[in-house]
C-alpha cells in the first residue's frame, strides 16, 4: 500500500486513526502491530511471513545479546554476528541474488539461474532499521525490548516502513513504551502529512511525466534544452517524491504520537557535495556513518584508510539504492567528489560560494541522470546533449511546448525546494496564517483527490477503431 492512494487516504487511515484513539492506550501498540501487517501485506501477502520472521529473529537476538552483553561479551558478539549475517543474507537473497547470478553467468562456463523474485517492499529500509537494534543493545546504546508486540510495532511501523526515514531503535525506544499524543502534535502531523501529499501527488508525479517524455529519446531527438529540462524534472521528481514520502511518514508518526527524525533539509541549496549528503536522505547517511564508517575506523586511522572507508561506504550506499551496477557506479561517482572535497576542494568552495552552488547542482543533476538511466549508452546520450550539444542542436519546437506546459509547475517546484517559502509564510501575520492553514489543507486534499481518482482513469474506448 502507498500513502498516495485512495485506499490509504479514505479507508485505511480513517479506520486506523479512529480505532487507535478509541481504544485504551495500552492496546494501541497491539492495534498498530496488526494494521502494520495489513499495510505491509497488502501488496504481497506472503511476505508478511518474511516480516514476522525478521521481527522474531531480531527480537530473540536482542534478548540474547541483552542477556550476555554484561556477563559474556564473546557470546553476545557471536549472537550479534550471526544475527547481522542472517539479516544481510535475507536482504541479499531477495534483492541482489539475481544481479550476482546474472553477472557471474556472464563468465563463460558459469550458469546460475536467476530467481525472478519480486522485491519485498521496503526490505532495504526495514532490514537496516531492524539490524540496528541488536547492534545498539550490544553497544549499550539501548535497552532490551522484552515486549514482542512493542518490538514488532517498531519494525513494521507503517508510516516509515516502505520508504523511510530509517528509524534507529534507540531513537524511538522510549516512545514505544510511553507516548503522549497531543492536539498540538496531531495538528502538526496533519500539516506535515499534507505538505508531503502535495509534494508527492501534485509535484513529483507531474514533473515525472516530463522526464518520461525525454528519457528514451534518441540522440537525433534530444536537444540541449530538452536534456536539461528532463534532467531537472527528474531531479525535482526524486526530491519531491522521496521527501514528500518522508514528510507523510513524519506527519503520520506525529498523528500516532511518534516523533521521527528529519530526513531531508533542502538539499538543493547545498554549496558542496559533502553538504548535499548532509541534507539528502539524512537517516541513511547517519545509518552508514554509525554502523559502517565509524566502526571501520572512519577518519581516525590516517588518510589512506579514510579514503578506503569512504569508498566502501559509498559503494554500499550506491548498491543500497538498487540491485544494478549502475547504482554502484553512482555511489562511486559521489565518492569521487566527496574525496576530492575532503582533500582540498571544500576549503576552496568555502571562499567561492556561488561556484559552490552551481557545482553542487551540476553534480547532483548529472548524478540523477546516471541514477535513473538503465543503460550506459542512454546516459551518454544525455550527457552529450547536456554538455557537448547533442546532434539535435540547442532547442526544438517540442521543447518549447513542454517548457510552456510545465513551466509554471517547474517554477513552483524549484521555489518549493528552497527554504524561502517557509520563511515567508512564517513572516505572515499570525491571524492570516491561522486562516490559511486549514484553507490550504482543504485545497491540497481536494486537488490531490482529483489527481488520485484520475490515476486509474483508463477509459475503455472504441478508440482503437
Amino acid at each position, binding site marked *: 500500500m502507498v500513502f498516495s492512494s485512495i*485506499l490509504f487516504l479514505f479507508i485505511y487511515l480513517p479506520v486506523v486513526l479512529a480505532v487507535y484513539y478509541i481504544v485504551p492506550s495500552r492496546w494501541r501498540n497491539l492495534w498498530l502491530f496488526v494494521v502494520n501487517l495489513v499495510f505491509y501485506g*497488502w501488496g504481497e*501477502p506472503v511476505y508478511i511471513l518474511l516480516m514476522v520472521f525478521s521481527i522474531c529473529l531480531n527480537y530473540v537476538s536482542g534478548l540474547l545479546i541483552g542477556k550476555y552483553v554484561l556477563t559474556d561479551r564473546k557470546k553476545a558478539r557471536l549472537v550479534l554476528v550471526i544475527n547481522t549475517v542472517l539479516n544481510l543474507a535475507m536482504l541479499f537473497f531477495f534483492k541482489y541474488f539475481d544481479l550476482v547470478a546474472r553477472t557471474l553467468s556472464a563468465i563463460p562456463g558459469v550458469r546460475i539461474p536467476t530467481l525472478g523474485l519480486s522485491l519485498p517492499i521496503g526490505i532495504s529500509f526495514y532490514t537496516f532499521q531492524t539490524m540496528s537494534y541488536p547492534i545498539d543493545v550490544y553497544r549499550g546504546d539501548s535497552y532490551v525490548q522484552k515486549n514482542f508486540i512493542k518490538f514488532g510495532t517498531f519494525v513494521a511501523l507503517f508510516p516509515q516502513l516502505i520508504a523511510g526515514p530509517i528509524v534507529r531503535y534507540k531513537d524511538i525506544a522510549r516512545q514505544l513504551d510511553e507516548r503522549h499524543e497531543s*492536539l498540538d502534535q496531531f495538528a502538526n502531523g496533519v500539516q506535515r502529512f*499534507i505538505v508531503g501529499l502535495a509534494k508527492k501527488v501534485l509535484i513529483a508525479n507531474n514533473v515525472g511525466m516530463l522526464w518520461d517524455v525525454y528519457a528514451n529519446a534518441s540522440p537525433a531527438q534530444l536537444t540541449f534544452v530538452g536534456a536539461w529540462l528532463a534532467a531537472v524534472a527528474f531531479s525535482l521528481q526524486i526530491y519531491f517524491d522521496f521527501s514528500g514520502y518522508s514528510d507523510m511518514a513524519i506527519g503520520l508518526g506525529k498523528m500516532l504520537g511518534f516523533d521521527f527524525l528529519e530526513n531531508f533539509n533542502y538539499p538543493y541549496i547545498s554549496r558542496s557535495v559533502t553538504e548535499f549528503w548532509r541534507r539528502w536522505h539524512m537517516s541513511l547517511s547517519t545509518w552508514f556513518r554509525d554502523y559502517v564508517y565509524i566502526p571501520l575506523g572512519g577518519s581516525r586511522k590516517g588518510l589512506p584508510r579514510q579514503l578506503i572507508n569512504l569508498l566502501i561506504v559509498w559503494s554500499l550506499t550506491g548498491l543500497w539504492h538498487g540491485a544494478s551496477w549502475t547504482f554502484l557506479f553512482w555511489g562511486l561517482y559521489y565518492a569521487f567528489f566527496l574525496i576530492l572535497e575532503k582533500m582540498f576542494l571544500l576549503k576552496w568552495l568555502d571562499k567561492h560560494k556561488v561556484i559552490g552552488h552551481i557545482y553542487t547542482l551540476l553534480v547532483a543533476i548529472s548524478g540523477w541522470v546516471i541514477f535513473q538511466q538503465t543503460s550506459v549508452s542512454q546516459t551518454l546520450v544525455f550527457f552529450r546533449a547536456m554538455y557537448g550539444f547533442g546532434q539535435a542542436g540547442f532547442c526544438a519546437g517540442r521543447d518549447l511546448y513542454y517548457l510552456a506546459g510545465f513551466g509554471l509547475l517547474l517554477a513552483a517546484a524549484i521555489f518549493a525546494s528552497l527554504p524561502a517559502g517557509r520563511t515567508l509564510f512564517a513572516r505572515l501575520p499570525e491571524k492570516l496564517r*491561522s486562516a490559511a492553514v*486549514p484553507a490550504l489543507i482543504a485545497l491540497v486534499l481536494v486537488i490531490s483527490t482529483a489527481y488520485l481518482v484520475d490515476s*486509474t482513469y483508463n*477509459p475503455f474506448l472504441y478508440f482503437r477503431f
Partner: protein
Amino acid sequence: MKKTCQIVAIAVFLLFIGGFFVLNIAMPDREFSQQENKYLQMLPEFSFKALFSGKYTKDFEDYTTEQFAFRDAWITMKARCELLSGKKENNGAYYCGDTILPDFDDPGKEEIDRRVDYVNALAEKVDTPVYFGLIPGSTEINASLLPKNAPADSQQTVLDWAYSRSRADANVDLQSALGAHKNEYIFYRTDHHWTSLGAYYGYTALCESMGLTPTSLSAYDRQTVSEDFCGTTWSSSGFTWVEPDTIETFVPDDGSVTVLDLEKDPPQEGPLYVTSFLDVKDKYSMFLGGNSALRSIETGHDGPSLLIVRDSYADSLVPFLLEHFSRIDLVDLRYYRGSLAGYIGENGFDSVLVLYSVPNFTTDQNLFLLSM
C-alpha cells in the same frame, strides 16, 4: 499556531477523509460509467486464492478508486487543473477550444514498411483488385488547431511513405479530398471518427479511384439524428465541458438493405442504422451496429461486390457505397480469424478495399492477418 486554528485544521482533515469514507460506503456502486464508456470495478469477492495471487488486493484497490464518490466530477476537475497549470493536454488528448484532438506518434519507417508489406502480400495473393486507403485522422486535418509546437507527429508523412511503398492496385487519395474541405465539419470535435460529411468526401475519393460517379452532395436528404454525441476523445481527455457533437445521416435506411452479422450464430439480421445506440454513450456505433468480425450487406442494388477490410471509419462510409454495389462485406481483423484470401476466393469479390485510419493502421496488432 493557535489552538482554534489547530482544531480547525484537524477537523478539516478528519472530516474530509472520514466524510468520504462514509460517503463511499453510503453511495451505491455503479456498474457502468457512461462518461468513460466502460464497466467499473465492483467489490471483488474474497478468496484466499485471490488474496495470495495478489488479485484480490489489486481489484480492491481499483474498486476504491473507480467507485469513489463523484468520480466523474473529480476527473473533470483534474483536467481543469492541468489546463490551469499551463498544460494544453490531458491523458493524451490536446485541448483546442471546442475541439479535442488525440495525440499521434509516428512509429517510424521500418514499422510502416512492415505494415504495408501485409497489404502488399494480400495484393499479390489474390487476383481481385486491391484498393488501399489510409484516412488521415482528425489531428492531421485539424493540425492548425493544435496548441503551438504540440509534439503530435505528422500523419501525412506516414501516409505518403506508406503509399510510396504500397503495391496495391490503387492507393485512394483520401487526404486531398479531406484536405480540400478541412474547414467544414468533417471530423467530430469530441471523437476521433470522421462525420458523415467527412465520410462523403472520402466516398468521392474512393469513387475516383474505382472509376465510379459519385452522387452529388445536394442530392442527399440530410437528417440530424443526435445532437448530444460525446465521443472517445471527450471521454479520454476529461474535457467534459466541451460541447457535444451532432450526428447526421445522408442516406435513408429505407429497409431495402439487409445487414447480416455473420459473427453471430445463427447470423443475425440488422438495420443500416441501429438507432438504439443513440440512447447510450457509444452513439457512433449506430452505423451498422458497431464492431463485428464479419458483416455482409445485401444492398438491394445492382452492381459488383466489394470486401472492405475495415476499421470503424468504414461504418459511416458504407451508406454512400450502397448504390454502387450489390453486396458489401466488412471484415474486422481484430476479431476475424479465418483466411482472408480464402474468404475472398470463396465469395468471388470483384474488388477489395483495405481501409484504415492512419492512427489505427500504425497501431493495430492484427494487420498480419492480411497476408494469411
